[in-house]
C-alpha cells in the first residue's frame, strides 16, 4: 500500500467523518427567524475566555447568569433564553470565524454583547449583510452609534469613550481654568477616543493638554511614559488606560514624587478594587485626588450595600455563576446589558422576529435598570443610537467613590 494511497484514504475517512458530524449537527428550526422556537430563543457572543484579556469575560458571565435567572422564572413570553458564547481569545480573526459559526451553525437569533471594539467592527459588515442584529456591543466606540444609517441593526451600550472624554473636558473647563493636563492613553481606539473627546470638551477653554503619552497594551510597564508626563509640568493627570496600566500610572506617579492636583481616571478602570490596589495600602498620595465617571452601581461601593438591585445581582451570581467573584464590576456590566436585552425582547411580541428586535432596540426607553445608577436611563430613538448618554462624576474619598454634582448628559455626535 503506497503512502499516497493511505493518504487519500485518510482524507476520505476524515471527510466522511466531518460530513457525518455536519449532518448530525442539527436540523434547522421551523420558525419565523433562526434562533426562535416555541420554547427558546438562542443568542450568541464571543468573549475572551483565555489569554491576556480573560478578565473581561466576566461581562459575559454576568450576562449569562442573568439570562439563566430570567429563563428559570418563565422566560420572555414563555421562551427561555439560551446564551451561547465562544472563546475568541480577544483575537478579532477568531471573533469573525466564531461569529460566523454562531450565525451559520448555531443559528442564533442575534449577536449580543460581543466583547471588544475592533472585534465588533470586524463582524459588523458581515452581520449587517446577513441581517443579524448586533445588539449592545460591549464597546464604547463611537462609531457604533454614529453609523446607524449604514448599520441599522448594530448598536452599542455604554457611554461612548468620546463622550466620556468630553465630559471630563467640560468639567475641567468649568472648574479649573488654567489647568495643564497630561494624558496617558492606550494607543488604540479606546484611548484615542477618550483623548479626542477630552480635547473637544476643552475647546475654547483655558485648559490645555500639555502632554499626551501613548502606551501599547503589549508593554510591560508605563514607567517611562509617566516620567515624561511628570516632566511636562502638568498639574492634572488623565489616565485613559486599562486596569494594570492605570494602577501603574498611579504607582509610578507616586514613586516619582508627582502630585497632580487632580487625577482623572476613566470608567473602564475605575473599579474600586483597582483603586484599592493603586492606593498601595493607603500610602499612595496620588490616588486621593481622583475623579472618574460612572453609570453602573459598583458592587463594592458601600452606598449600594442595601440596594435592591445590587442584592439581586449578588443573588443571581451566587445561584447561576457559582465561583464568580461578585466584587468584580464587569459582571454588573453584563447584567445591565442583559436586563436591557430582555426588556427589548419583551417588546417584540408573541413571536419575536429580528426585525422586531431591531425596532425595539431603536426605540428604548428604560428608566429603571436595577443595575444602573438611578436617574440614568437607556433611551434610543430614530436619530439617537446611543443607549446611554449620561454619567455621574465621582470623587475618591476615604477609600470609596462618592458621586457628586448632577448627572452629566451629552449628545453623542
Amino acid at each position: 500500500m503506497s503512502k499516497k494511497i493511505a493518504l487519500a484514504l485518510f482524507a476520505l475517512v476524515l471527510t466522511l467523518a466531518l460530513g457525518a458530524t455536519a449532518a448530525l449537527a442539527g436540523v434547522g428550526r421551523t420558525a419565523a427567524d433562526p434562533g426562535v422556537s416555541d420554547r427558546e430563543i438562542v443568542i450568541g457572543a464571543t468573549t475572551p475566555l483565555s489569554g491576556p484579556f480573560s478578565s473581561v469575560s466576566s461581562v459575559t458571565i454576568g450576562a449569562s447568569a442573568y439570562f439563566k435567572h430570567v429563563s428559570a422564572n418563565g422566560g420572555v413570553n414563555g421562551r427561555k433564553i439560551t446564551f451561547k458564547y465562544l472563546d475568541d481569545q480577544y483575537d478579532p480573526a477568531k471573533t469573525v470565524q466564531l461569529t460566523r459559526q454562531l450565525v451559520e451553525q448555531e443559528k442564533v437569533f442575534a449577536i449580543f454583547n460581543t466583547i471588544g471594539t475592533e472585534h465588533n467592527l470586524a463582524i459588523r459588515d458581515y452581520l449587517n449583510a446577513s441581517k443579524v442584529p448586533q445588539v449592545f456591543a460591549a464597546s464604547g466606540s463611537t462609531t457604533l452609534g454614529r453609523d446607524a444609517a449604514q448599520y441599522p441593526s448594530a448598536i452599542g451600550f455604554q457611554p461612548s469613550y468620546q463622550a466620556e472624554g468630553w465630559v471630563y473636558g467640560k468639567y475641567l473647563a468649568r472648574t479649573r481654568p488654567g489647568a495643564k493636563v497630561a494624558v496617558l492613553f492606550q494607543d488604540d481606539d479606546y484611548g484615542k477616543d477618550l483623548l479626542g473627546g477630552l480635547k473637544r470638551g476643552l475647546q475654547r477653554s483655558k485648559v490645555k493638554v500639555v502632554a499626551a503619552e501613548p502606551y501599547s497594551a503589549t508593554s510591560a510597564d508605563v514607567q517611562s511614559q509617566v516620567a515624561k508626563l511628570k516632566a511636562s509640568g502638568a498639574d492634572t493627570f488623565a489616565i485613559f488606560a486599562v486596569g494594570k496600566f492605570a494602577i501603574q500610572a498611579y504607582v509610578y506617579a507616586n514613586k516619582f514624587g508627582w502630585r497632580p492636583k487632580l487625577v482623572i481616571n476613566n470608567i473602564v478602570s475605575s473599579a474600586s478594587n483597582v483603586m484599592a490596589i493603586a492606593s498601595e495600602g493607603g500610602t499612595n498620595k496620588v490616588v486621593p485626588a481622583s475623579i472618574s465617571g460612572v453609570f453602573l452601581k459598583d458592587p463594592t461601593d458601600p452606598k449600594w450595600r442595601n440596594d435592591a438591585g445590587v442584592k439581586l445581582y449578588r443573588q443571581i451570581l451566587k445561584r447561576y455563576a457559582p465561583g464568580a467573584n461578585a466584587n468584580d464590576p464587569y459582571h454588573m456590566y453584563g447584567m445591565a446589558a442583559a436586563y436591557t436585552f430582555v426588556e427589548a425582547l419583551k417588546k417584540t411580541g408573541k413571536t419575536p422576529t429580528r426585525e422586531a428586535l431591531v425596532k425595539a432596540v431603536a426605540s428604548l426607553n428604560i428608566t429603571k435598570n436595577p443595575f444602573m445608577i438611578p436617574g440614568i436611563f437607556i433611551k434610543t430613538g430614530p436619530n439617537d443610537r446611543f443607549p446611554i448618554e449620561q454619567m455621574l462624576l465621582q470623587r475618591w474619598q476615604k477609600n470609596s467613590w462618592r458621586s457628586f454634582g448632577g448627572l452629566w448628559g451629552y449628545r453623542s455626535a
Partner: protein
Amino acid sequence: MRLGRAAAPIIAFVVLGVVVAVVPSFVSAFRAQQLAYVGIYLVALIGLNVLTGYTGQISLGHGAFMAVGGYTTAILMSDHGVKDVWTIPLAALVAGVGGFLFGIPALRLSGLYLALATFAIAVSMPAVIKRFESFTGGGSGINLFGTPELTASLTPVTILGQELVFNDWLYYLSWTVALIGYVIAWLLLRGRTGRAFRAVRDSETAAQSSGVSLPRYKTLAFGVSAAYAGAAGSLFAIATTFVNPDTFPIALSILLLVGVVVGGLGSLVGLIAGAVFIQFLPIWSQEISQSPGAPSVVSGLVLIALMFVLPMGVAGLVGRLRLLTRRGYHRADSQAD
C-alpha cells in the same frame, strides 16, 4: 519500476484532488468554511515543513510572514483595487523576499538563537504594523467585507457553471492554492534542492564539506517557507475579510510550529492532520468546558498528551501503520520522501 514508483504518488494525489473537490457537496456551508481555514493553515505548514522538516531550522515567527502576506493583500485590495485572487502571488512574493532577507543575517544564528530571532519578529510585527498606521490602518485595521475586490462576500460567484457562496468559494480557493503549493514543494524537494536541504538538516558541517553552500540553501529555505506563509496570510485575510495587528498574534506563530510537529514533519498526511489540529483544537477545547481559562487548560493537556502518544506526530502513526501492513524490506524512516 521507476515509472511505477512515480505513478503511485501521482494517482494518490489525483484521488486526493477528487476528494477535495467533492467534499463541499457532503458538508454544510459553514463546515466548508472551517475546512477552508484548514486549507489555509496547510499552505503555511507546507512552507514551514520545508524550513523545519527539511533544513532543521526552528521558526517561531511564521505568523509574522503570514501578517506580511495578509497585509499586502489587504492594502492591495483596499488601496489599489486589485482583485483578491491576484494579490495572492504578490503577497507570497513580498513575504518570500522578506523571509529571504531575514535569512541572510539569520545565517549566523542557529538553534535557540534562531528561534529567539524568529520569536522576536513575531512579537514585533503587531507593533510595527501599528507604527506605520497611514499605510496599514493601525489598530483599526483594514476591512474587506463587501468590497468589490473581494469575491463572493455578498453575492455568490459563478465558476465553471457552478454557483458558489462565499464559504464554498473560500474552500475551493484555499485548497486549490494548497494543492498547487504542495506540488511545487514536492518538485522542489525531489531534486537537488531537497537533498541539499536534508544535508543541511542532518549535519551542517558534513554538508559544507560536501560542497553544499550553507548560505544559499538556508536563506532559500527561509525565503520559500516565508513565501508559503505569505500566501497563507493572504488567503487568511481574504477569508476573514479583516486584518488588524491582533489577527496575527504570537499565538499563531506558536500554533504553526505546533501544527508541524503534531502533524509530523515531512508528509502530506501529517501536514493535513496538523492543519486540522490547528483549526479545530480551540473549538474542541471549548466544548469540554467554558469556564474562563478552561479551554487553555484542555489545549495544553492535549498538546502534552500528544507528544507522549504520538511522538512523531500523526505522520509517525501512519508510518507505523504502514510498517505493520507491509511485509518485506521497507525503509523504517517514515520521514524520508
